Structure formats: C-alpha cells, structure tokens
C-alpha cells in the first residue's frame, strides 16, 4: 500500500511536469499550427539559464567549486531559487518570440517547413548547450529552508519539492491558463483563432501580435518546466529529446491544441510510466525493462480509435 501511494505520487508529479511542458507545445500548435520541435531545447535551455543565474549570483564560493553535480554545500535562500526561475522563464519567453519572428513568421502556413526549421534549430541548440554546459548532469538547488521530504498519512514519505512544489505549480499553471483562455480578451482571440484564423485577421485583429503573445506564453511554459525539471530531476544533454518526446506523446494522446487533452495525456503518460516501472513483475518474471512498450501501447491504443487524439479536432 505504501509503495502504491509512493508510485502513484511519482506518476502524478511526473504528469504535472509533463503537463507544464506539453501545454506550451499544444497551445502554440492549436493557434498557429506550428509544431515547435525546438520545444525540448527551450525546456533544457530554461533549466540551464536558471542554473547559470543561481551559480553566478547566489552561490557563495565556500567550497572548492569542484563538485561534479554543481551542488555545493552553500545555503540557498528562497530568492536564490525564485529569481532564477522568473528570469530564466522570461528569457526563454523572449527567445521563443525571437525564434518565431525571425524564422517562422514568414513561413506561416507551411507547417512541414516550420517543423524542419525548428528541428535544425534544436540540433544547433543541443550542440551549443553541450559545448557550454558539458555532458555531466547538473541540478538546480532548491531553497535550503524547504524540507527535503514530507510525511503523509500512512507513514508515506515523499519529496517536498517534487510532491508539493511541482504539483501545486502545475495546478496553478493549469488554472491560470484556463482563466487566460476562457476569461481574457487574449484568450477569446486565441479561441477564435484556433477555429478560423483568416476570419480573425479579417476582423481587424492584429494576428501577428497575438502570435507573438502565444509564442511568448508557450516558450515561457517550456522554460518554467525546465526550471522545475532541473530541480526535480536534473539537467543533462538528452533531456531536450526526452521532453520533446514526452510532449509529443502527451499531445498525440490528448489531441493537438487542447489544454484539457494535454492534462489528460500528461496524467496517462505519467501514471503509465510510473506504474510500468514498478509493477511489471509477475512472479519471477521481471518485465520492467520493457516498460517502454506499455507507453507505446498507450499511444497506439489511443491512435487506433482516435487518430486525432482524445480531444483532437481536424485542422
């Protein structure tokens, strides 16, 4: 029972992280039909930028600075985590806008070409990040004042950052996105744009400005995800690929462009990942190595019945 609760919490927190990252991916696609293959790169870059700010501004050089994990024994205040989070997130948002304005804006409508452009950018970004931050995995330090773990009823201990911070961040972000999309003027335009872009621009709305806003928001979410993920798991080359794949699977399951679909897809993927890693043991037969097949089966199962995903609509 204890194990089950822990595994479920693992799945939920993974799902929370997947949701934050994938929601940006799906929102950009929903409005602009842009498949941003560099989304995983923005995730990783966000984490690395936060790490850089944290080590430059908030790490006192008390140790020898030789620690491989990047974590030294210095104390971190809450600001030492929040300031990098906010700055890195904003920087990634701006990078997203620059990317859209420089490379994608004049290709609007050519979705394959845009996908290829973002793939090229992700190749370059991955290589440059490897050059600058190296191949060893690094962590962003959580504030030292925060407890490392909490005890839930039933004697279940679970990581505080993972269980409380990431989960509540994902819920807050989900609520905020819901309110932005449902209640604000920007959200209204976005929803109209998803249904009929040409009509929206014919009505005199500056679509380019809406696109800028959406790319800022979408990239920003990748950045937040990167900081959360960099604190919760770690930052390493290859995480960009992993989170691009996760975002792809989440939105393929949930349906491209749907926020609710992203939430359902993230839950499905996170829980399946967590359970398959632990419960694929039948007596002496240990199949946990094959857990990726369960993920694959989930994807295939959804696609076999709903080729556009659970909440997907034809473009």
């Amino acid at each position, binding site marked *: 029972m204890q194990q089950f609760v822990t595994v479920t919490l693992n799945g939920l927190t993974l799902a929370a992280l997947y949701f934050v990252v994938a929601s940006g991916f799906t929102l950009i696609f929903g409005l602009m*039909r842009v*498949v941003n293959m560099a989304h995983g790169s923005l995730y990783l870059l966000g984490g690395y930028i936060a790490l850089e700010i944290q080590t430059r501004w908030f790490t006192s050089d008390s140790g020898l600075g030789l620690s491989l994990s990047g974590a030294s024994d210095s104390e971190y205040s809450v600001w030492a985590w929040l300031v990098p989070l906010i700055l890195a997130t904003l920087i990634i948002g701006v990078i997203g806008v620059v990317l859209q304005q420089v*490379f994608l804006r004049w290709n609007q*409508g*050519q*979705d*394959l*070409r845009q*996908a*290829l*452009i973002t*793939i*090229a*950018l992700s*190749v*370059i970004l*991955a*290589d*440059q990040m490897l*050059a*600058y931050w190296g191949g060893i995995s690094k962590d962003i330090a959580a504030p030292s004042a925060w407890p490392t773990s909490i005890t839930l009823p039933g004697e279940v201990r679970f990581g505080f950052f993972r269980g409380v911070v990431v989960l509540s961040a994902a819920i807050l972000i989900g609520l905020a996105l819901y309110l932005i999309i449902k209640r604000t003027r920007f959200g209204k335009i976005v929803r109209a744009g998803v249904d009929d872009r040409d009509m929206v621009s014919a009505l005199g709305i500056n679509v380019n400005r809406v696109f800028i806003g959406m790319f800022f928001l979408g990239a920003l979410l990748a950045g937040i995800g990167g900081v959360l993920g960099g604190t919760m798991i770690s930052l390493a080359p290859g995480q960009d*690929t992993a989170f691009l*794949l996760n975002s*792809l*699977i989440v939105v*393929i399951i949930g349906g*491209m462009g749907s926020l609710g679909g992203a939430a359902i897809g993230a839950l499905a993927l996170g829980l399946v990942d967590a359970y398959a890693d632990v419960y694929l043991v039948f007596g002496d037969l240990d199949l946990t*190595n*094959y*857990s*990726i*097949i369960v*993920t*694959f089966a989930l*994807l*295939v199962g959804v*696609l*076999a019945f709903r*080729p*556009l995903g659970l909440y997907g609509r034809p473009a």
Partner: protein
Amino acid sequence: MNPAVSTKRIAWPALAVAVGLFAVAPLFVSDFFVSAILTKTLWLGIAAASLIFLAAYGGMVSLAQVGIYGIAGMAYANLVLADGGAGTAINPYLALVLALLIATLVGLGFGWIAARSEGIYFLMITLAFSVLVYYFFSQVTGLSGFGGINSVDLPGIVGSPEQDPLPRYLLTLVVATLVFLGLGALSRTAFGLGMQGVRDEPARMRALGFDVTLHRTLAFGIAAFVAGIAGVLSVFYNTRITPGSINLAQTIDVLIVAVIGGLYRLEGAWLGALTYALIDNYSREWVPEVGNVLGPARFNTLIGVLFLVIVLASPGGLIGIWDSLRAKVRTPRRTPAPTPVPQTTE
C-alpha cells in the same frame, strides 16, 4: 514546400555515369575513402531514399525510417553469431532475410497506425515511433547487449572488410543501384501513380474507390523494407550496432541527408548522403575554432546550420538548386518544360 515532384523517366545516361564513377572510384582513391565516404554514402543514401520515396510520392514525411532500420539491424545482429545480444548464431543469409521480413512487418504495423493521420501529425507520430524504438533497445539489454552488439558475423559475400573493403563496397553499390531503380520503377506502376493520387487528392481518390489507408500502409511497408536494407547494410558497415546509433540524433541525420539532397527526387538521397559524409569527415580539418561556438568538436552545429540554410533557402535541397540553375540556363533556348504536377498538400 511544394517544388514539383519529378515524374520523369530515369535519366539513364546520368545514372550510368554516376554508377560508373562509383564503380571505378576504388582505383583512384584510398581504402579509407572507399569505406568512410563512398560506402557510407551508399547505405546512408538508401536510408534517406526510403524517406524521400514516402515524402515525394506519398506526401508522407516519415521520421520512423531510422527506427525501422534499427529494428532490421538489431534483428540481424541478434540472429547471427555476435558479441552481445541474443547471439542465436544462425546462417547470416537466413538472418538477413529474417531481419528484412521483421522490419517490413513492423513497418506495416507502424504504417497502419500512422497512415490515418496526415502531414504534420504523421511526422510527429512517426518521430514518436522512432524514439520509442531507441528507448526500447536501450532498456532491453538482453537484445542490445551492454554497450551494443559487437563483432557481428557477416555473410561470406562481404568478405572481411578490415583486410579488403572492396567486396562490401561493391555489394552496397549494387544494392543502392537496385533500390534506386526499383523505387523509380515502382513509382510508375499503377500502385505508384495511386500513391501520388493519394498524396494530392485523398478525398477524390477515396471517392474513386481507392482504399487510401491501405495504399498508405503498403507504401509505408515498402519504404520499411528499403529502410531495413539500409539497417542491415549499416551493420555490415560498422560490424556492430548500438542503441546510440539509432537514437534521435541519427533519425535527424537521415532527415538532414534527405533534406539537403532534396525531398522530392530519389537521387537527392545519395547526393545528400555524399555531402553529409564529406562534411562529417573533413569539416574537422578546415573548420576554424571560434571559442566554444565553432570548431572541430562542433560538427552538429555545422550540419545544423547547413540544414537550416538549405531549408530556408531551397526547399528542394541541392537537387532543387541544380534544377533551378539548369532551368535558368535553358529557358531562353528551349520551350518551357511541361507543367509539373502541382502539390497541393502542405
């Protein structure tokens, strides 16, 4: 991206010259060049050709080709005598046939799932397939060994490449030529024309009574067979296969090769592969070192920038540049070429 797909017949003289040049090249260049550049060009070109075949004639840009070639390569390496993996140690020729069969069947399965989606959805689903294949083989060490399957047994026809790379090179050349001719011929059969119809007007083809999903699935299966050939040849080339050699980077490399060559003409596959192999081998020597940003170790940045420039400048790749140059030179003297098939699917 909508440069016209060539429906011309094969330019036999050009093909003869190209194959002839490849055939006599070993007389003039070093063994290293034969292996590292020419052999690699040929098998990498086959992998890219399977992608271009789907993209040009079926309108399906598939990123699953490396996943499928990985399955073929892994299947072959597991079936023959090797260091790591299942090590079934059966006859290499039989293993070759089985590996291609497995790859084709898996390809048909992938195709059946992916075929009902179109365009960008298709790209994403096939990318997910490819990456899942990579994760599968990196997790299941019983099938991929720890650190890959090494010293894989090769069929007798390949000889021993360490001593004499020539038989392997000539075999790859023959296979590449056959793949090129086969895919070219196939595109002019009723099936190939049906594929192009499905690409341009799926709704009308459906109305004409074509089973669009089945057509796409079969096309995908054929491309999977070709990708499988490339996978087995890559094992011949490396005499080993690791999960790392079929990861996302390799998936993207094959896409880069196809796009550099030109997504709309089969011959672009080998042109792209040659460009890629040359840059891969020689860029380390002439690329200036600019801090951390550029230098011998930053091959991916270089190839990424080249990829970006090609995508931005010439959607038809190098072949597209060649075609438009030729068109410019010829237009004053000749009547314009017949209007090519317009590609309406974006």
